[in-house]
């Protein structure tokens, strides 16, 4: 039976083109793959090949014709020996193939928060205790808490392993993996060559293959070399596979400024990772949170970015003395209740927030201090409920100001609690400069307790 040859789309954007030249004539026999015409697209001149074998019955569009719309019949092709005199009529009666007409005018099924009307639903903050009241506590550094979290989860699940630079024999560049090699052996605690791009990708493959990798970056600065695998390979695969497979794994290591290590080793990536759908992002402050959240991260069936901080590693906190406890993602912690202003922070930013709150209390300003703990998901409800109470908000983080977590929260608060605000939200952040080396300059490049205090005075008009 005769079939039509249609004007092809030869690029993702082509809508019409010029039929520059016919390379066959009526009556020619062609086989699949033979070049039959040259077509000029919006980008280039392309050769157009026959898909079926047969005899060219009729050329419907003359060469040199411009503006031939995609899917216009340009020729008729029939089987050998077929009477082609009626081919044109037959072909014309065939229905034109339907183009995808539904690509425009889609209704958005579920509006993102960007289009949520202000004052939507009343916030329902979950402020249940993280562990039962009366639980015995012990003092531990963040470093020890992280190590214990990994060791407990490795005992619990054989598919969990740790890989990274100096994690095994050296006992960790920052001693976070101390003792793990002794307990779990070289099969599960693996020193890698210095090859972040490669071992991050290898870790993603191991996660696809059924394991639960913990990939340690000596610092997250070096994870920039691995960014493609974190974002393109780990975060997007579940979606791209229609839910068939994803990367249950943890990328962890110190993040943000340490001290006097210069621009390339001092950057907070919280906002970068928090912008990626498919990742979960954690940045703990206390040892108890570090432990409970890392255990949750290792059990989570998604890729989790776990941002630690070198300066906090040695800080001691009270940690519940429980055999097994976890802290859920998306649940902020209120460190200090207050009525005059809400200070929202996370990670090492909490050191500024809490110190500022102490300072302010001396002048009778009672700040409510919220530690977000996880940045994706983020506990909007606890923030909004607090802002509805205090009517003022200051955010604190060490990252760069543009596109910061504070920026995002400000927008969210504006859209969801606008009528409750008595002052614009202020974001205290690192300065918009690469981190300098000189001690005095470095101090000024970070945010500070006086800056947070000043911001609170500004929003409280006191």
């Amino acid at each position, binding site marked *: 039976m005769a079939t039509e040859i*249609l*004007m*092809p*789309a*030869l*690029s*993702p954007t082509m809508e019409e083109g010029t039929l520059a030249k016919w390379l066959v004539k009526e009556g020619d026999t062609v086989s*699949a*793959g033979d070049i039959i015409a040259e077509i000029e*697209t919006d*980008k*280039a001149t*392309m*050769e*157009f090949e026959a*898909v079926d074998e047969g005899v060219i019955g009729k050329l419907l569009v003359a060469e040199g014709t411009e503006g031939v719309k*995609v*899917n216009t019949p340009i020729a008729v092709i029939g089987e050998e020996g077929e009477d082609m005199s009626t081919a044109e009529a037959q072909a014309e009666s065939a229905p034109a*193939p339907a*183009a*995808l007409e539904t690509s425009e005018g889609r*209704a*958005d*099924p*579920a509006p993102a928060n960007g289009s949520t009307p202000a004052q939507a639903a009343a916030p329902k903050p979950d402020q249940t205790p993280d562990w039962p009241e009366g639980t015995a506590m012990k003092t531990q550094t963040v470093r020890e808490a992280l190590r214990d979290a990994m060791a407990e989860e490795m005992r619990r699940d054989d598919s969990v*392993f740790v890989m990274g630079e100096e994690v095994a024999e050296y006992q960790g560049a920052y001693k976070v993996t101390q003792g793990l090699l002794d307990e779990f052996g070289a099969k599960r605690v693996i020193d*890698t*060559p210095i*090859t972040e*791009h*490669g*071992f*991050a*990708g*290898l*870790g*993603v*493959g*191991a996660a*696809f*293959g*059924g*394991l639960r990798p913990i990939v340690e970056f000596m610092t997250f600065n070096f994870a920039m070399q691995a960014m*493609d*695998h974190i974002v393109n*390979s780990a975060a997007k*695969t*579940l*979606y*791209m*596979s*229609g*839910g068939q497979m*994803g990367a*249950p794994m943890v990328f962890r290591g110190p993040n943000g400024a340490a001290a006097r290590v210069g621009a390339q080793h001092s950057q907070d990536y919280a906002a970068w990772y928090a912008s990626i759908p*498919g990742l979960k992002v954690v940045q703990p402050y206390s040892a108890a949170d570090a432990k409970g959240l890392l255990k949750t991260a290792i059990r*989570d*069936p998604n890729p989790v970015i776990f941002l630690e901080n070198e300066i906090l590693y040695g800080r001691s906190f009270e940690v519940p003395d429980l055999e097994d406890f976890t802290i859920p993602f998306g649940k902020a912690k209120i460190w200090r209740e207050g009525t005059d202003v809400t200070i929202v922070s996370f990670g090492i930013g909490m050191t500024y927030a809490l110190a500022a709150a102490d300072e302010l209390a001396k002048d009778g300003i009672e700040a409510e201090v919220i530690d977000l703990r996880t940045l994706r*998901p*983020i506990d909007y409800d606890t923030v909004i409920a607090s802002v509805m109470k205090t009517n003022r908000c200051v955010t604190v983080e060490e990252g760069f100001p543009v596109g910061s977590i504070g920026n995002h929260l400000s927008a969210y608060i504006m859209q969801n609690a606008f009528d409750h605000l008595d002052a614009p939200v202020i974001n205290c952040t690192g300065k918009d400069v690469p981190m300098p080396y000189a001690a005095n300059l470095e101090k000024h490049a970070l945010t500070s307790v006086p800056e947070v205090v000043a911001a609170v005075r500004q929003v409280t008009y006191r």
Partner: protein
Amino acid sequence: MPPRKTAAKEGSATPNVSADELKHYYREMLLIRRFEEKAGQLYGMGLIGGFCHLYIGQEAVVVGLEAAAEEGDKRVTSYRDHGHMLACGMDPKGVMAELTGREGGYSKGKGGSMHMFSKEKHFYGGHGIVAAQVPIGAGLAFADKYLGNDRVTFAYFGDGAANQGQVAETYNMAQLWDLPCIFVIENNQYAMGTSVQRATKSPDFWERGAAYGIKGEAVDGMDVLAVKAAGEKAVAHCRAGKGPYILEVMTYRYRGHSMSDPAKYRTREEVQEMREKRDAIEHVRQMLLTGGHASEEDLKKIDKEIKEIVNEAAEFSKESPEPHLDELWTDIYADAAPQNA
């Protein structure tokens, strides 16, 4: 341009192959070619959008290597992935419907030509970033070694990807840890529009493994039996716990890099010569006919069957509905709905 260097002698039929096996390879290669021709046609009709990289010309590579694989072995490749999916037994309907972005596609229409997966067939994508699949392949092999089974992983990549830094990183780790990974360099001689000669002064890609202590060889990728034989050798090496192996398979893509590539970087004569003198499907066809293993009639019957399978896939890919709009918000997290949904 003929393949530069081959391990197997040209035209040397491996003795230990049955007529049925030969017919099977013919069938598999033909399926890929007809499927890809149909995909090109649907692209021309606007039913397939975006990027679409066809595998026409390279069919013997995956068919030969799949013949060397066993159940449970894994494979991962680049964005030129339709052939790999068909060769490992994925349903042509599901693949074609993914190309048209429909609900019936392997990724429910959310992946497209470059991003398809099948847990059931141990196909781990479908990766759109050049060479990203190489460390991922080594990671799959790492998982098998960790779990203590004797499966192997085929990590396919092109001559363009072979110049990426992460390939070198992966070679180093794979050999260091004796990972059962076969690195298959599909050298089709052009990285998009840049010929191998214009991209490197070290064009024998398989030899780069020597820098890391990895064994390998170059193979005639237009000869499915030569590919199969080399694949069996590589698989035996990996299964025996001897670490990774590199196969540089010399092949040729007849079509442009993607559908919108006018392919002005090579002559029409060069392409025609490969098609006419070195075509892998024609090679097997002649073996079948001259060896008396199949008649013209037998082969016509196979052609007809394949045409029907491909037409059914095309029909399915047009009839399957577009994904429901709710699908926008699913499969972002394995355990929960995304927060901003």
